[in-house]
């Protein structure tokens, strides 16, 4: 299932992007879906991997993210 990660600031989104690139995790950046409450207008969408928590890994690098399942979003 796809997950949406939301962040406090644009800076945090781009820090997360740098981490995802460095760790070869595929992702997309998209406008934060309206029904997800977020401080920041951009969000990151990625495929959830069994047994791996990307938000936990990001937090270990000092990046706070909240994760939402994509089930409620329309899929583009």
């Amino acid at each position, binding site marked *: 299932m796809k997950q949406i990660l939301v962040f*406090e*600031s*644009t*800076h*945090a*989104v*781009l*820090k997360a*992007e*740098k981490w995802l690139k460095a760790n070869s995790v595929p992702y997309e*950046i*998209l*406008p*934060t879906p309206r029904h997800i409450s977020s*401080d*920041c*207008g*951009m969000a990151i969408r990625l495929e959830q991997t069994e047994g791996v928590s990307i938000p936990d890994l990001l937090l270990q690098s*000092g990046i706070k993210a909240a994760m939402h399942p994509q089930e409620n979003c329309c899929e583009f």
Partner: protein
Amino acid sequence: MKHDRPIYFDHAATSWPKPPEVLDGMRRFLEEIGANPGRSGHSMSLDAARMVFETREAVAELFGLDDSAQVVFTANATHAFNIALQGMLQQGSHVITTAMEHNSVIRPLRELESRGVIELDIIPCTNTGTVCLDTLDARFRPNTGLVAVQHGSNVTGCVQPIEKIGALCSRRRIPFLVDAAQTAGCLPIDMKAGHIDLLAFTGHKALLGPTGIGGLCIAGSRLPEPLYFGGTGSASEQEKHPLFMPDRLEAGTPNTVGIAGLQAALEHLRRISLAATVEKEQALRSRLVDGLHAIDGVRVYSGELPVVSFTIDGLTPDDIGYVLDRDYGIMSRVGLHCSPLAHRTLGTAPAGTVRFSMGYSNTMDQVDRAVQAVAEIAERSP
């Protein structure tokens, strides 16, 4: 006499010419990206936000700051000082600064003093402009809320013992603000080694970026209160300004073209290496200082940076500056250099000095021609 190629010796005011990469970086941003960073979700806006993010990371790396979210872009060093001083100082704080500071530090402090917010203590320096550590140490009070010190002088080029001053402040847990306007791009700066809590820089001097871009770097969790409030592209549904960094201290559309220029300038600096720049500028400085010292009637005020002041007995600095420009095509800066306190410290107030400040684009031949010009002017002195 007309000069098709001026000798530009005013790098301490602003560097010129800028490296071609800087112009290319700014042009590329305007032509290919151009959008407002972090405001809209589209890919051009995202590319603009990435450029700003990468530049923040490059600034953090340059100054040894761990978290690039603590780099705030400002219009210049003056803007950074105003954010730091007005945002950090609380009613009743005692502030220590030095008799070498630039007006961009002194004036906001004098303003806070006249509003009755702070008590200001300006410590004297030696007659060559150096802060005496014992004098500083004796001025701390229980309510000392900040120490503000210039890293390098825009009048004499003298460099303060920043790491030792930082250690004194850090032992007392007093925030230490450093003015790196003259030293960023000219000397290595490490915020950790210097125990620096707040570092203000400007992009248009030795960093070789464009005007209109500078920054405030903040180590640790003591953050200034915002000086101004507005749109950040984040927390848009809230009417209150967000308090997380860097949005806390950055409201309104940033100077993206300036940031793109700064990014290119930092890449340029990395490519040519800071060490090589320092070596070249030191060679220019010693040649100039040796040449000026050898001229009768010339007094020289110099330190470690490629910024050298001098006077000629019997002539005023403004006359000397005028003749240097008219007859020799040499661009100098005369007078008080926005630093009346520094000139009082050196004994050169109220007339000030003539300042030659050099940079990466100057040559030994230009230094020799300038020394020759000063010798000829000194000879004409009554």
